[in-house]
């Protein structure tokens, strides 16, 4: 025991004073390294945040103008000779009339100098292609208008809109504006016939090839239907699985396997879920393509692990004393769970479910696999009718060549981000409101 106090056979390597001097000499260098390191950390955080600002900023800059659109006010004479020459009042006759011609005459009345075909075509090119259909629908809805001269507001062509917003110059290859059109626009502008207004088409229309009448309504409804299916399947199943794993499952290799499996599933690439959906739901079960039902099923399989993991965490947070108290009163395990554990852990589970839904709302890739990329011009009628969802709509618009779709894509992105923000805010609110310290 006493050999512990052995005296070393080596002399102390440094005398105290020498050591102090040495430490002091290096201090400056070490603090410089410290400052550098700290700066690198700050830099990393700043880069990430700068990127976020850039990302959201470009979307705002591109997207906000798309919430406004140019409209042209024009007087159209609804000449009965052109619409319904025999005065039949038959909707089929009225519907088949040449409204393009009506629109053209209205424009020609305003610009009598337009004589040759090219100039007339240019005039029509100022307004949206869909303006003729709008006009037709108006007359069909109110046949009494035939014979009168009405003032209508139509969306301008997307190029005119971009030109008015200063997003393209006349010389641009994108801007197919002729000199005549530019002059005509200047005149209309001076008349006050051209004006900028809220782009309601973006929210009341569905997909369209024409940027000025393309809208998000169909995609929003599609997303909503898909999420309803996802929530309806994933939430009850996720809660049930979480309850079983936390409260009933014996701790053995089988439950270990389930546990590992759930953690893995949460990290499986989303596109693999798409392949599963394609092979299982579409090919094996013969479910309809492009349907919110199938999309919801695929997303619910994907959201399930997230909800189970959140649910288990919420159940774990309930102190064992409550469980023991209930069991001690003679409640069965099911009663303990349904009377005490579930109500107490519900806020946590809901928070997890909302976050899972927010994730599902932003998901694109697996939905491409099951055909939710179809061009759907109508608002989906139900869970089995063809539909698309917001992120897929963004993907589709991003691919369209028209310059005006760039802005609209950003506007769609902003809309999606607002939805996500609302969902996350709700989750945070729930968490804060029901946060409990045991």
């Amino acid at each position: 025991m006493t050999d512990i106090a052995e005296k070393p056979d080596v002399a102390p390597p440094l005398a105290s004073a020498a050591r102090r001097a040495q430490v002091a000499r290096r201090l400056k260098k070490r603090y410089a390294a410290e400052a550098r390191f700290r700066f690198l950390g700050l830099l990393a955080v700043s880069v990430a945040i700068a990127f976020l600002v850039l990302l959201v900023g470009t979307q705002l800059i591109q997207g906000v103008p798309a919430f406004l659109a140019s409209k042209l006010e024009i007087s159209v004479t609804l000449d009965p000779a052109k619409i319904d020459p025999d005065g039949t009042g038959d909707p089929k006759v009225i519907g088949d009339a040449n409204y393009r011609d009506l629109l053209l005459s209205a424009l020609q009345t305003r610009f009598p100098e337009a004589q040759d075909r090219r100039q007339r075509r240019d005039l029509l090119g100022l307004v949206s292609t869909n303006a003729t259909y709008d006009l037709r629908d108006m007359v069909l809805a109110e046949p009494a208008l035939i014979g009168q001269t009405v003032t209508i507001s139509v969306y301008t062509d997307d190029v005119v809109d971009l030109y008015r917003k200063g997003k393209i110059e006349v010389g641009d290859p994108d801007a197919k504006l002729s000199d005549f059109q530019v002059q005509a626009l200047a005149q209309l502008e001076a008349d006050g016939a051209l004006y900028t207004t809220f782009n309601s088409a973006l929210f009341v229309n569905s997909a369209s090839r024409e940027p000025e009448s393309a809208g998000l309504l169909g995609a929003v409804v599609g997303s909503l239907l898909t999420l309803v299916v996802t929530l309806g399947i994933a939430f009850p199943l996720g809660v049930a699985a979480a309850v079983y794993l936390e409260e009933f499952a014996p701790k053995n290799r089988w439950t270990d396997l389930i546990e590992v499996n759930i953690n893995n599933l949460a990290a499986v690439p989303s596109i693999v879920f798409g392949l599963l959906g394609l092979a299982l739901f579409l090919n094996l079960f013969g479910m309809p393509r492009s349907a919110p039902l199938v999309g919801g099923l695929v997303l619910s399989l994907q959201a399930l692990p997230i909800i189970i993991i959140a649910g288990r965490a919420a159940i774990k947070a309930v102190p064992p004393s409550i469980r023991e108290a209930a069991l001690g009163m003679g409640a069965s395990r099911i009663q303990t769970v349904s009377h005490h554990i579930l109500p107490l852990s519900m806020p946590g589970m809901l928070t997890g479910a909302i976050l899972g839904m927010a994730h599902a709302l932003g998901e694109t890739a697996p939905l491409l696999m099951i055909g939710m990329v179809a061009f759907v011009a109508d608002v989906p009628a139900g869970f089995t009718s063809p539909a698309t969802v917001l992120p897929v709509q963004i993907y589709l618009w991003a691919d369209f060549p028209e310059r005006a779709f760039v802005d609209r894509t950003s506007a769609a992105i902003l809309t999606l981000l607002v939805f996500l923000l609302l969902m996350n805010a709700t989750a945070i609110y729930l968490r804060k409101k029901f946060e409990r310290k045991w």
Partner: protein
Amino acid sequence: MVTTDQAQPKPVVMPLDGPVKIAARGVNLWYGAKQALFDVDLDVGANQVTALIGPSGCGKSTFLRCINRMNDTIPTARVVGDIRLDGEDIYSPAVDVVHLRARVGMVFQKPNPFPKSIYDNVAYGPRIHGLAESKSHLDDIVRFSLERAGLWKEVADRLPQPGTGLSGGQQQRLCIARAIAVSPEVILMDEPCSALDPIATARIEELIDDLRDNFTIAIVTHSMQQAARVSQRTAFFHLGILVEAGPTEQIFTSPLDQRTQDYVTGRFG
């Protein structure tokens, strides 16, 4: 100074007869709003072992951590007062905390070797402070420190193995060797034996007694027997107040304060 309890009797502090290494005057410490030390005045003598004793939560560890400013790492801690190392105020802005800690080393309650090899554990301090001029010099420092800590014979043939693989007592001696390797002037020990078995404890106690030749040592301990065995001077803390300080023998045989008497005779604590 703030809020000293006026009802308390003045601390009984016997003056040192040797040279003073550390002199603390009027040290107050707050953790957030809670005050943990009240006006502590204490001298630590050079090349001797000073034991800090007292019941749990009395502030003895807190005071120890003030001496090398380890409390700086706790964001809510605030220290007011004056602690001098060789007459130099260690809380003055001119003092660099890194430099200070190279002079005042520390050994902790639970052995905390880094998850590195035994060699790298001991070489850590010399490396960060740039004390070794060459590889062989560093080898010398490591060997010297391990020998000084009485661990060399046990680990000489397995220096590349992880320090976490040693037994608890060996780990703590490794931590002492790690502290010695920087060749500090003072070594602070915060209940270094509380996690160890009696045999390992005995070896560390011998080691402490031996190290006194080269270092000034302040040790916090829960065990009065340990304080009696290893220290020359003892300070008794109670509720954040220094109650009594004096030669160890006197504290244990004829304390001047009633509370010290009660504590050392085992009436509370």
